[in-house]
């Protein structure tokens, strides 16, 4: 799949109310291209509630239900149950895809119970968390997804805690599909949505969504910052199916030794939210802490990869 093979039809229309360089609108545009017109979309309270434009206008060329903040999983469950009924009654000829679109606050924090419940019931819908690592809509407060040391309006000296990892929590639910994605790897993102569409049950996709006003970088740098997150190893791209995790795109290239992992500094320096790590003087300790964490993760990933290669080499030796 190449970018020029993506469908031309736009289901998120231009002229909407998103900020310049908004990662949510970019992610939506790509995801909807992959899922197509036969989709029921539920938007959970977030910047996406706003970017679709105020009543009576709408930027969506899809049926959309806006819902309250803590309802993502339950909304998906209700839509999926109704679709099941309507399929039985023959109201739909082709089963529509149910897509729930929520932010990291709506996923990591207030909505995790609802999401967990739906996943445990394996309700039939795709849940997307577009993770801009803060409550952007209410003016960039910290969330459970905000990374260590990041400035937000209520962590002015940098967040003291490390972020949790909801994608891994979803893996632990044993649902049929979990994937992470990045705006900087659009074909990878597109393919993950296409694969998710072909599976039944709860599917979870989390997209890292660098937010220009929230993370404080120029609005033209959204994709660049998204790419640096992968290149420095701070955002991992993978998908998880049937008990097996497969690393993809930029993350895979690093693990396979085909690309050099960049120092985290390059990512941190590209954003104003980490400025206090470099100005007025370098905060060696916190920068090193972040670097150490990533190094440890990749040591394990690379070791596992080499081990697998080694076993495969042995198995492929001709019998003696």
């Amino acid at each position, binding site marked *: 799949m190449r970018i020029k093979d993506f469908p031309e039809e736009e289901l998120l229309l231009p002229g909407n109310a998103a900020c310049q360089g908004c990662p949510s609108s970019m992610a939506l545009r790509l995801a909807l291209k992959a899922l197509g017109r036969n989709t029921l979309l539920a938007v959970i309270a977030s910047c996406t509630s706003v970017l679709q434009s105020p009543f009576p206008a709408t930027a969506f060329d899809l049926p959309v239900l806006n819902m309250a903040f803590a309802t993502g999983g339950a909304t998906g469950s209700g839509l999926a149950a109704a679709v099941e009924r309507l399929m039985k009654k023959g109201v739909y000829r082709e089963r529509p895809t149910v897509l729930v679109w929520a932010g990291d606050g709506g996923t990591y924090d207030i909505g995790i119970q609802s999401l967990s*419940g739906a996943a445990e019931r394996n309700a039939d819908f795709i849940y997307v968390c577009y993770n801009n690592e803060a409550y952007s809509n209410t003016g960039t407060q910290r969330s459970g997804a905000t990374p260590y040391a990041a400035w937000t309006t209520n962590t002015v000296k940098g967040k003291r805690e490390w972020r949790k990892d909801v994608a891994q929590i979803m893996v632990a639910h044993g649902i049929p599909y979990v994937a992470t994605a990045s705006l900087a790897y659009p074909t990878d993102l597109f393919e993950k949505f296409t694969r998710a569409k072909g599976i039944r049950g709860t599917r979870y996709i989390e997209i890292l969504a660098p937010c220009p006003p929230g993370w404080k970088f120029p609005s033209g740098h959204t994709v660049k910052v998204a790419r640096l997150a992968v290149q420095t190893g701070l955002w991992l791209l993978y998908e998880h199916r049937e008990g097996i995790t497969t690393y993809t795109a930029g993350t895979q290239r690093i693990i396979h030794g085909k690309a050099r992992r960049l120092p985290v500094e390059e990512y941190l320096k590209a954003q104003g939210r980490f400025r206090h790590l470099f100005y007025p003087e370098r905060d060696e300790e916190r920068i090193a802490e972040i670097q150490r964490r990533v190094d440890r993760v990749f040591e394990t990933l690379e070791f596992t990869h080499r081990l697998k290669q080694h076993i495969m080499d042995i198995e492929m030796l001709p019998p003696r």
Partner: protein
Amino acid sequence: MRLVETGNHAAAHAVRLARVEVVSAYPITPQTQVVEEISRFIDEEGYDCEYIPVESEHSAMAAMIAAAAAGVRAFSATSSHGLAYMYELLHWAAGIRLPMVMANVNRALGPGWNIWCDHQDAMSARDTGWIQLYCSTHQEILDTVIQAYRISEDPSVFLPVMVCYDAFTMSHTYMQVDIPEQETVDRFLPPFRTSWRLDPRFPLTHGSVIYPQDYEETRYSIYQAHRAAREVIRRTAEEYRDIVGNYHGDLVETYFMEDAEHAVVAVGTLALEARVAAEELRGAGYPCGVVRIRSYRPFPFEELRELLGGMRTVVVLDRAVSFGLGGILASEVKAVLGGEGPRPVSLIAGLGGRDVPYTLIAERTEAAIRGELSGEEWPTLALNERHLVSLRGLKALWGGERA
């Protein structure tokens, strides 16, 4: 078919007869049997319905809204803390104008944990835009749940309806219930009707950001729908009587009001106690009647004005309080009468399931009739030794006069 059933099971039968397609609910005493019975119908009796065993009431209501939005008939049941937990979404359901029905078994709110009846739960949710109907018999529960779908799905209404009934005195007691035939109910209740549904062929957006220049109109439309609902509730009760056969009143039900000079106003089973009290009082020579409010929202102000305006005495029984004001129903009845006719006497009684015997109602009503009682009273209050929160308890705690 005639069965001896609990109130909760009567509700479950109604759900099945209404051909509800999605049920999402979370357990809470005393509502649990409703959903247990529905799930048994599905598993053992071939009832074709999607049951979502959600992980909270907030999710129960969210899933119901989503199901109705996609275009199917939905149901939930809850009580007390469950209803309180749904509060945000009660507004959402009504605001987005989706028809659906929920049973609420009226139960007190903690702390401390109290599973018994009062009306604080539903009355605290009275301004969410939901229609609220209160029942007083098991038969009425069954009939009202079915009627509620007709009301909810009426094009001049399109609002969610809450069917309320008293914890334990109704939810768990057994009474005779006539279960109508499916074909009869089908003649009364057409397939699901709604003003909008999510449909890829008509890609509309619902519930997005709305500015002040439009928002108020959406509120006004709910206000108007509640006005229209009054007539719809009357018509629905009549059509139900004609087709299915039972009648429990429309917005109100009255007992002995034809020649009454004194009236007791109440909701739920308390109205039945009041009816016995009224019989007693009639025996003692007081022409007393009872007005049972069936539709709490929309409020039956025309009916109440007409029925109560000419009374010599009006006593209002409340099983809920607006703290800082008084009996909720009493203040609303006063507002309806607007100073015309008698000044209602307010009795706040039976909170948290405390028994309200008909003898007490008769006694206090007689006192009101004789002019010995005016204003407000908590006649079942006991302030017994165990109550640290009572004045006596506080005195014991702090010693002497400090309390």
